[in-house]
């Protein structure tokens, strides 16, 4: 069987370095990808502990542990960390590791900027967290930081602004890096329409980042200027407009949520195909959906502002409802991929199926909020908390866990324990639904968001208790996950190149790959080059 020789791009090895220094100065996209994952999971533990603290407070009416001043910092930091320092960098981390591999490239287009993008992240995150030591405490205006409230608070709010500007800069640099890499560094034969759907999802995400993240940065600078430089952008007593912030923020904020899900869609689509033993039902449909969602995401922002009475309701309602069309198409494609397949229920597939089941609920419950008259009832209530967690946790986090089980052998040369994975799946699924499903009902019963406490006569007590129990069950699942990772890392590296019988180029090299990624690239004639290699001439199974 003929194998195309990749052009010789081997890089001369550099001078010997100590291991720690090597990790601190590396520009290898694979190491940087791992650094992203380590940083993100660390912030995930911090943000998760904040969530457990909040749920402990809310389990029963009355203030048990946290005075509102502390509670308000908790939910602000929880949201900010999870969105900017956990979910987005997890997807960026997988992107960093696997996009060059999936397109047959040696590394990212700009390896040193790639390293900078990573290191800015913990700097930004720690800047935000350092607010806990500031006078007056950390930021406490929610992750959305609406003025005038965010102009009232102390230094912690400035540290929040600075941290987010740092993180935003990092992601813009990363977005440019991904776009150039994907457009310019694909191996011969790797046309755009043969790229893995995960790479497409990172391309779409990067387009969103470079268009939307600068808008947030601009808004944050305006907010800082109002707070410290005497400007009055958002000060209504001096001719400023309070709502300007919301328009600027949500023009970024809505594309932001698609930055938080597209990568997971890419991962899950690929995993479904591999573990059904079939090609993706409609590769073109997936690419088209990703691109339509990317474009449409800029047209819906004011659906976060329906209750202000200051935005054009029918326009934003129809655009919001329309964006569910390409999203719905993805579900049909996933089902079509499984149809008449040969399903294998390994942990990656379990979590991918969990993703489909949970993200469906998250997408559907958003439809109620898309209709303004209904939104007047459920906006800023626990219905929205349910919605955002079903899409971000039930969606992206399930997808990220699926990706970890799927790609762990490739990154580390070891297979995560299947048994622990199955236990984690069921505990996570049950805990997650126990926590967040009751929140739909709490929202319908009028429980607002972001409250440190509630009265015992509102009829919210029992469901809050249930949600807290669920949260601790999620914590058990997460502990199992980290135990699985730590135990597995101590095992010898025995994983084969392609443990799952997969399709895309990252499986055409060793587990883990050598520093230069590929010794030899297989011929690239379709969107499944490793499948083609495996099934040509009866090689392998």
């Amino acid at each position: 069987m003929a194998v195309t020789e990749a052009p010789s791009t081997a890089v001369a090895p550099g001078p010997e370095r100590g291991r720690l220094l090597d990790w601190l100065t590396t520009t290898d996209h694979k190491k940087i990808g791992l650094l992203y994952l380590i940083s993100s999971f660390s912030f995930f533990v911090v943000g998760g502990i904040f969530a457990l603290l909040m749920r402990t407070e809310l389990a029963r009416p009355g203030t048990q542990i946290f005075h509102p001043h502390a509670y308000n910092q908790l939910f602000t930091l929880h949201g900010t960390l999870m969105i900017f320092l956990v979910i987005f960098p997890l997807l960026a981390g997988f992107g960093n590791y696997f996009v060059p591999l999936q397109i047959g490239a040696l590394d990212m287009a700009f390896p040193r900027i790639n390293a900078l993008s990573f290191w800015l992240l913990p700097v930004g995150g720690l800047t935000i967290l350092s607010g806990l030591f500031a006078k007056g405490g950390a930021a406490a205006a929610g992750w959305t930081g609406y003025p005038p409230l965010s102009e009232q608070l102390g230094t912690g709010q400035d540290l929040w602004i600075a941290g987010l500007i740092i993180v935003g800069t990092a992601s813009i640099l990363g977005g440019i890096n991904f776009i150039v890499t994907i457009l310019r560094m694909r191996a011969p034969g790797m046309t755009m329409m043969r790229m893995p759907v995960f790479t497409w999802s990172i391309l779409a995400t990067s387009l969103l980042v470079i268009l939307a993240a600068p808008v947030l940065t601009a808004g944050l600078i305006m907010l800082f200027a109002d707070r410290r430089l005497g400007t009055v952008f958002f000060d209504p007593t001096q001719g400023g407009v309070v709502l300007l912030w919301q328009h600027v923020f949500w023009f970024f904020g809505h594309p932001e949520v698609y930055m938080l899900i597209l990568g997971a869609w890419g991962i899950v689509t690929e995993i479904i195909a591999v573990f059904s033993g079939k090609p993706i039902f409609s590769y073109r449909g997936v690419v088209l959906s990703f691109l339509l969602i990317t474009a449409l995401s800029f047209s819906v922002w004011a659906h976060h502002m329906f209750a202000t009475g200051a935005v054009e309701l029918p326009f934003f309602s129809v655009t919001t409802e329309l964006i569910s069309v390409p999203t719905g198409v993805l579900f049909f494609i996933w089902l079509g991929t499984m149809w008449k397949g040969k399903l294998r229920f390994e942990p990656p597939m379990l979590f991918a199926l969990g993703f489909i089941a949970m993200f469906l609920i998250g997408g559907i419950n958003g439809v109620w909020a898309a209709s303004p008259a209904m939104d007047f009832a459920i906006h800023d209530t626990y219905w929205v908390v349910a919605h955002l967690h079903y899409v971000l946790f039930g969606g992206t986090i399930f997808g990220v866990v699926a990706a970890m089980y799927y790609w762990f052998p490739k990154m580390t040369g070891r297979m995560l324990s299947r048994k622990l994975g199955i236990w984690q799946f069921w505990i996570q699924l049950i805990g997650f639904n126990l926590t967040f499903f009751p929140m739909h009902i709490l929202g319908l019963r009028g429980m607002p968001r972001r409250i440190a406490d509630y009265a015992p006569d509102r009829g919210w007590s029992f469901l809050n208790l249930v949600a807290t129990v669920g949260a601790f069950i999620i914590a058990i699942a997460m502990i199992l996950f980290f135990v699985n990772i730590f135990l597995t890392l101590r095992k010898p590296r025995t994983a084969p190149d392609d443990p799952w019988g997969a399709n895309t180029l990252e499986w055409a090299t060793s587990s883990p790959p050598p520093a230069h990624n590929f010794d030899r690239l297989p011929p690239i004639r379709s969107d499944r080059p490793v499948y083609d290699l495996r099934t040509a001439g009866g090689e392998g199974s």
Partner: protein
Amino acid sequence: MSPSVCPPRARRPAAALARVGLAVGASVAFSGCAQQGISIKSHDVHILYLVIMALAAPVVIGVYAALAWCIVRYRKRDDQPAPQTTGRGRSLAVFFAIPVVIIAILFPFGEATLLAVEQSEIPQVQIRVEGFQWEWTFLYLNEGIFVSGKTLVRPAVMVLPVDEPVQITLTSRDVIHSFFVPALLFKRDAIPGRTSSFQFTPSKLGTYQSQCAEFCGLYHSKMTFEVRVVSSADYQAWIAQQRQALNSITCSANGSDLSLVAHNISWNAFCLAVPAGTPFTLHITNQDNGIEHNFSIYDSFFEKKQYFTSPRITGVASETLTGPPLPPGHYYFQCDVHGPAMSGAFIVQ
């Protein structure tokens, strides 16, 4: 490639059935959870809720059923490769068409409900609602009275006559708040520098717990209020009672040297009195750490004519102000930051 070990047979169908059962049960439970509310407009919103449920439930049940089917029916049982089929263009067209049809039903229905909710009538009761950190003031514009909540102490109560259209004009004195009455299935944001108007007609007697729904800082969770819907007769009686209470605030002048303390967003006196025709001095102590107050004198809470205003004082601090000589009369003083919630009668004798 390592051979996959299939989990025991019993697990897969159980999982699949559990998913479908969950979806059906959830739909049933959901339908029972949404309340109808206490106005015609809220009933319309409730119907919209059910319509969306009727469109969404088949989607959820359908997808879950298809998932369950795949899990049970297409589990890998042998080493034969699966048919490597993909969808043709027609499949993709159908996939796009299905959600478009659903939205083609959803959007017009939602629009119709929105128009119903936005419909206006001739209001009988007109109330200006002001949110502030962290309570509410309700100014009844036709009746010339106001009620105010007291932060952490007493929620504001909005008494309304049943079956009369109410018009609310809403604003905030400081940060963004939100006027949220779950029983009306409605909320509107209170935004400083903007007023926003809406109407409703409560049609059921009762007391309805409500609270601020836009995060507004330290005591956001305590920014509650009540909507109390009573009979017409009880409403008139209540108005008369409020008017009487406001008019009966009186005190006597004891020299022209006054002192006033602000604590927990309240003054320590509801009545100040000075002799006519001479300037007066006012010692103000602001004991609210980090919170601004000031002192102004108007003709009434309608704030049509201002006689005096002081700069804002940030607590904890004290200031001595000198006020102008005033003709005899019954005036009104307030902290402009918090409005009628921090106000009283200023008598000049």
